[in-house]
């Protein structure tokens, strides 16, 4: 019979003047997958970090198997059998995949670490998850998605009793997610308790047994998934009903007029094969493909972050040289990168400074934005995008993951770009805000912006994109338009069927 494995009672955590957790209870049973839900900034990550001792709790008790525990850091939590994947991929880019997986528990022989055994076991683990990665490769060279998978494999491997996953699926595609779910179910059946944080309600209903919902650091309630509805959960999270249906297909806009941007035979060796791409004002082009298919590379190329070695680019019909991001920004481009932590946020700077950074950089150092102006811009976007922060002067690294993502989006909106590239813009964003962002993209299109949006969520892409570019193996296969813009058609194209039909 499932028993209460881990219980949090009256957990409280405050950060300098703000209460992030206010007497929260959570009960985990052995052999269940327990969803932890809430809006961006609700306190999910804080709860997890307080549970594993990364943050010192200000009040409350933690009971494991009925006995009170006091893990002082992640290490002690691990020793107690609690394995965790924290929200941002928190692995070590400079170590190899194998070292990351076995850090702190390397197999030893005669007191020395046994590299060969470690790599062998790593290869076994990776194979089990279908990853074709060299165990000796440095982790930093791999894509975020692969890193995320490695983090999960590690946590699964160290957790004896409890496995905690904080938004593990954010950068995974459907196939990987399925694989992860399979693994989670196996572990559940083995009697582990799993905490699963996600903003995808589909996923909650696919694998979870029960859910606990937080709002503003308070416990809203606990539900058994089988006995509850989506709307119910959403209402608990938001504290109100979600206004409109989330997945409403926008009327296909016929993109008209001259292209805003055009790329001819644009490409880069060892990165993306030369491709053609034209985007008209008011058009959002979606980009779909599997992991490593070259979506991010395409975005970087188009933004000048990597220099193209063939082809040419045009803005409003005039050729431009995209030698570096600055040139692209001058041409009116904007780019929200995928790796928020390393390429997006400037952690120690305040929310305000992060928001005005690109605008300021474009104006040049000698024409500073006045403080009043900066505050006005920051306030406007904090309000418009509903960025949850106590204060726009707070260092951005202290914001919750989803709110950081919104601030980066604000950074580019503040520059009023003519062409905006978004790489996974809704990653880590809650249901409410997700709908907001989808609406925002639509509104920007209506205002005449040209957009290139990369997303692993096909449902989402098909909502706002009138045209979807499909990539495979670093090649642009072609565009899907009109009725073909549907998750099913995209999947079929990616899988290789019907390519001929759509490729022109």
């Amino acid at each position, binding site marked *: 019979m499932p028993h209460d494995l881990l219980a949090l009672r009256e957990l*409280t955590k*405050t950060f300098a*003047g*703000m*209460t992030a957790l*206010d007497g929260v209870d959570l009960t985990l049973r052995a052999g269940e997958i327990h969803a932890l839900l809430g809006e961006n900034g609700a306190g999910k990550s804080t709860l997890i970090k307080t549970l594993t001792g990364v943050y010192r709790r*200000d009040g409350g008790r933690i009971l494991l198997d009925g006995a009170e525990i006091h893990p002082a850091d992640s290490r002690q939590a691990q020793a107690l059998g609690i394995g965790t994947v924290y929200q941002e991929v928190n692995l070590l880019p400079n170590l190899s995949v194998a070292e990351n997986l076995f850090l702190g528990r390397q197999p030893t022989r005669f007191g020395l670490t046994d590299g060969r055994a470690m790599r062998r076991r790593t290869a076994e683990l990776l194979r089990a998850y279908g990853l074709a990665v060299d165990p000796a490769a440095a982790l930093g060279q791999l894509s975020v998605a692969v890193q995320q998978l490695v983090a999960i494999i590690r946590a699964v491997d160290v957790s004896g009793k409890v496995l905690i996953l904080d938004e593990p699926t954010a950068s995974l595609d459907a196939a990987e997610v399925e694989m992860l779910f399979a693994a989670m179910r196996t572990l559940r059946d083995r009697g582990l308790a799993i905490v699963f944080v996600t903003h995808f309600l589909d996923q909650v209903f696919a694998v979870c047994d029960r859910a606990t919902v937080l709002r*503003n*650091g308070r416990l809203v309630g606990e539900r058994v998934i089988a006995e509850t509805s989506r709307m119910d959960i959403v209402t608990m999270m938001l504290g109100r009903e979600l206004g409109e249906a989330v997945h409403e297909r926008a009327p296909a806009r016929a993109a008209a007029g001259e292209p805003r941007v055009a790329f001819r035979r644009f490409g880069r060796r060892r990165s993306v094969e030369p491709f053609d791409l034209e985007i008209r004002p008011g058009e959002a082009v979606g980009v779909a493909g599997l992991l490593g298919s070259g979506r991010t590379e395409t975005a970087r190329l188009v*933004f000048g*972050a990597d220099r193209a070695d063939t082809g040419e680019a045009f803005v409003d019909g005039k050729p431009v040289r995209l030698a*570096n*991001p*600055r040139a692209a*920004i001058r041409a009116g481009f904007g*780019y929200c*990168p995928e790796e928020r932590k*390393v*390429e*997006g*946020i*400037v*952690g*120690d*700077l305040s929310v305000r*400074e992060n928001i005005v*950074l*690109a605008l*300021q*950089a*474009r*104006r*040049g*150092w*000698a*024409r*500073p*934005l006045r403080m009043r102006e900066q505050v006005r811009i920051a306030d406007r976007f904090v309000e418009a995008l509903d960025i949850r922060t106590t204060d726009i002067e707070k260092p951005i690294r202290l914001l919750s993951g989803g709110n950081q993502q919104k601030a980066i989006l604000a*950074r580019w909106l503040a520059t009023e770009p003519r062409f905006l590239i978004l790489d996974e813009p809704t990653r880590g964003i809650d249901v409410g805000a997700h709908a907001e962002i989808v609406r925002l993209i639509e509104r920007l299109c209506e205002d005449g912006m040209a957009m290139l949006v990369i997303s692993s969520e096909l449902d989402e892409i098909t909502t706002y994109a009138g045209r979807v570019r499909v990539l495979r193996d670093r090649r642009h296969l072609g565009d899907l338009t009109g009725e073909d813009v549907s998750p099913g058609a995209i999947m079929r194209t990616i899988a290789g069927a019907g390519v001929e039909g759509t490729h022109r």
Partner: protein
Amino acid sequence: MRLSRLRSALPQLLALALVLGVNAILFPSFFDLSFRNDRLYGPLIDVLNRGAPVMLLAIGMTLVIATKGVDLSVGATMAISGAVAATLTVAGVPIPLVILAALGVGLLCGLWNGILVAVLDIQPIIATLILMVAGRGIAQLVTSGFIVTFNDPVLFFIGSGSLLGLPMPVVIALAMAVLVVLLVRRTALGLLIEATGINRRAAALAGVDAKAVLIAAYMTSGLCAAVAGLIAAADIRGADANNAGLWLELDAILAVVIGGTSLMGGRFSIPLALVGALIIQAMNTGILLSGFPPEMNLILKAVLIALILVLQSPAMGRLTALLAAGRARETGTAAPAAAGSRKV
């Protein structure tokens, strides 16, 4: 806002107070001030005056460290600028040109460092080590290894004149500090420097010209070092290429770090770096005045630095916060945390 800034400066100010207090105990007339030769006179003024070169170096060093770099070559740059100034003066070149040349040499040194770091992507410590070693050689080459003494009233004035009752070196250092603070805070340079230092990749993707920012920081550092070199030469009325600025780079880095700027780059404060420089100089002057045997100098310095470390450490801050909270609980008032939770 004002208040919070003052509070963040508290550890440094406390440390300075501590050192000055210790000095006053060891040397009772430490705070004596008098007016002599048109200027203020006394140990406190000595601290400012002698601290001027390190203050100057600390200004530029703060910017460099904020970009996640470090400039080991400032001592050598001081020697070069002093050597150039002295040699040109002796050769009869008009003084305005001499000063321009000395400052220009400093900018050039900074440009060299900046190119090595920003364009060739060489690690800052090793990039500037090259000039640290070679620069002193260049300075000695200029002076042929001996002390070039000069005789020029303008340079003398820079070294030992006074303005508004303060010694010229102090006036120059403060003016430079104000200038650079205005430069970085009234323009967007400060923001761009901090962004580059914290996350160069993200800053570059946001359109910050990281290379130009880096070069600007190293050039400012070179310029500050050149001014310091000029002052050091004017002070002894001669250019001592062998010893001018020797090991001062360490003092400058120490000043910046005491001033709370992290060697990992990012947020910086020039005024606090100046306080750091004054702490170091107050220590030195105190040691000289105290009459301890010179064998004790380094031990005294080590102990004082350790004290400052303890005083400034975040752990200490938490401890005092904890004590304060404990006292609050004892007296029955609500702990601030509890009050906060009710409000939200």
